[in-house]
């Protein structure tokens, strides 16, 4: 039965669409689904609740745009929770209100559907159900690395927000902006991050994740977008300064020199007191034992110095390396400045379909 009704409905939509296509040039095309929603709304206004309920259920079974889904859910909720208490079906109304709140966390019901009772139900549902949506401008211009707060986001309770951009050629999602836990805010779009373009010319998709901060629930909001602009060609950064281009700034450790100095200096001190003696009677005088102590001290200090040495700094090489590093930094600075200029001149015209996918 349901299938039959679905087929009839589809034929009606197809017929309406073909009828309208015949009238091209005569009037602006009108969505058959909107017609159906309008008819369901008329049924509701004529107190034909059953017909309105049936029609809205049938509409919701179709593949709908977000605005159509919201309109259909509003009619469905209103048809199950009319002014007349005797015909109300609160559980069914709550079912559709929960679905409605998921996609319409803020905003009032249309004037021709709202009633105090339904409005109270909507408020209560918004307190209980996590819902999120976003509003994007139809067109905007992005330039350089400038961040433009562009997309307004709203939710029934605080959520963390992440905005990704996916290029039409199936590239990986690029994280553009995030918001900390909040129930309303603006996400910013950016054409370039200084290194790579974030927005690729052509068809893009903006994907916004609303992650509830209080429960494990995530709502994904998608917008189709189209970007035009010429991606700047950035100059290649000089390769990192290779250590092969730098001169050694320290001489090798002086352990050998320390050992040699210990031997020569120590033995020289000892020899001065014990070997190098004057001739004749003066040379027969007792030797000075302090020479040995000094020799040991000199040797110990020289040896310790050789062991502790980390290498003598070579000022000439240090200076040359400083100049090399400075030249490299200048090259990097020049390229950075060139690229910064090119990026700052990069402009993207972006048109966004405000209809959430």
């Amino acid at each position, binding site marked *: 039965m349901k299938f039959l009704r679905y087929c009839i409905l589809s034929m009606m939509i197809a017929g309406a669409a073909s009828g309208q296509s015949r009238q091209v040039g005569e009037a602006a095309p009108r969505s058959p689904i909107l017609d159906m929603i309008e008819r369901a709304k008329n049924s509701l206004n004529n107190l034909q609740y059953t017909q309105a309920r049936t029609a809205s259920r049938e509409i919701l079974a179709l593949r709908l745009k977000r605005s159509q889904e919201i309109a259909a859910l509003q009619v469905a909720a209103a048809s199950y929770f009319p002014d007349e208490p005797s015909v109300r079906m609160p559980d069914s109304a709550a079912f559709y209100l929960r679905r409605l709140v998921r996609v319409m966390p803020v905003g009032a019901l249309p004037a021709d559907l709202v009633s105090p009772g339904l409005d109270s139900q909507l408020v209560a549902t918004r307190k209980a159900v996590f819902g999120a949506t976003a509003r994007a401008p139809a067109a905007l211009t992005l330039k350089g690395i400038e961040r433009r707060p562009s997309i307004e986001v709203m939710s029934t309770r605080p959520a963390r927000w992440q905005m990704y951009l996916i290029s039409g050629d199936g590239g990986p999602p690029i994280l553009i902006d995030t918001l900390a836990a909040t129930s309303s805010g603006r996400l910013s779009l950016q054409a370039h991050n200084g290194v790579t373009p974030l927005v690729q010319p052509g068809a893009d998709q903006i994907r916004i994740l609303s992650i509830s901060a209080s429960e494990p629930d995530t709502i994904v909001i998608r917008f189709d977008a189209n970007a035009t602009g010429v991606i700047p060609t950035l100059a290649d950064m000089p390769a990192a300064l290779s250590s092969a281009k730098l001169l050694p700034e320290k001489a090798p450790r002086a352990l050998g020199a320390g050992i040699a100095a210990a031997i020569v200096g120590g033995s020289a*001190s000892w020899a001065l007191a014990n070997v*190098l003696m004057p001739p004749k009677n003066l040379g027969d005088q007792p030797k000075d034992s302090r020479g040995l102590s*000094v020799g040991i001290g000199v040797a110990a200090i*020289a040896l310790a110095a050789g062991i502790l040495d980390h290498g003598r700094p070579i000022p000439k090489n240090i200076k040359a390396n400083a100049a090399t590093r400075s030249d490299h930094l200048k090259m990097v600075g020049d390229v950075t400045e060139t690229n910064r200029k090119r990026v700052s001149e990069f402009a993207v015209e972006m048109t966004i379909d405000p209809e959430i996918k």
Partner: protein
Amino acid sequence: MRRIFIAYSAFIALSAAPAAAQVEYPVDLRIGGITGGTRRDVSVNNEVTDRLDASVKGIEAYLGAKSGGIGLGGRILNGTYGADDFTQREARLFVGENWFRLEGAYGERSLIGTDSTVLFIRAGARSIVQIGGTGVSISISGAKTFQGDFSHSRSDGSRKPDGWEGESSVFYTAPKIPVYVQLGYRADYFKFQGRAEHMNGIVFGMGIWLGGR
């Protein structure tokens, strides 16, 4: 002696500090004071007459280009052995690089047991080797003494001074301030007109050394 080792150990430990703050001086300039307990043996006509200990103090200075070449210097030593004053003053000329340079000196030295002084020339060599970047340097020198007063007859051999001098020292120069300390041993022999003296002893020194690291 133990205190000396402790003090030097502390300096050696300091030498392990990063050497980045070292300053490169265009000259090699060292000015410092020296002191040390020195023993002097004296002989007159080959008869040993005296053996005394005294503290010999003095000033030593050197100035030369960092890269080597010619350098100038001088030394003054003073001490008192009993009733005898000992004095030695000399000007020095150096040729060569730090690691090896020829050294010439011209000066005068008090004559034992008299009020007169003896002029002399000394020639020798000196080597100062720095051990890496630690600030420790080892210095060894040796020199021979010659006649300095040419107004007397060369044929009178007894009027020509004779002798030698040797010194071995270790220096440590601090990393951030150009202050050095020195520990060494010095010995010299000087003979003139039958009077000879042999002096040897420990040398302590301290001063300023630009280019000591």
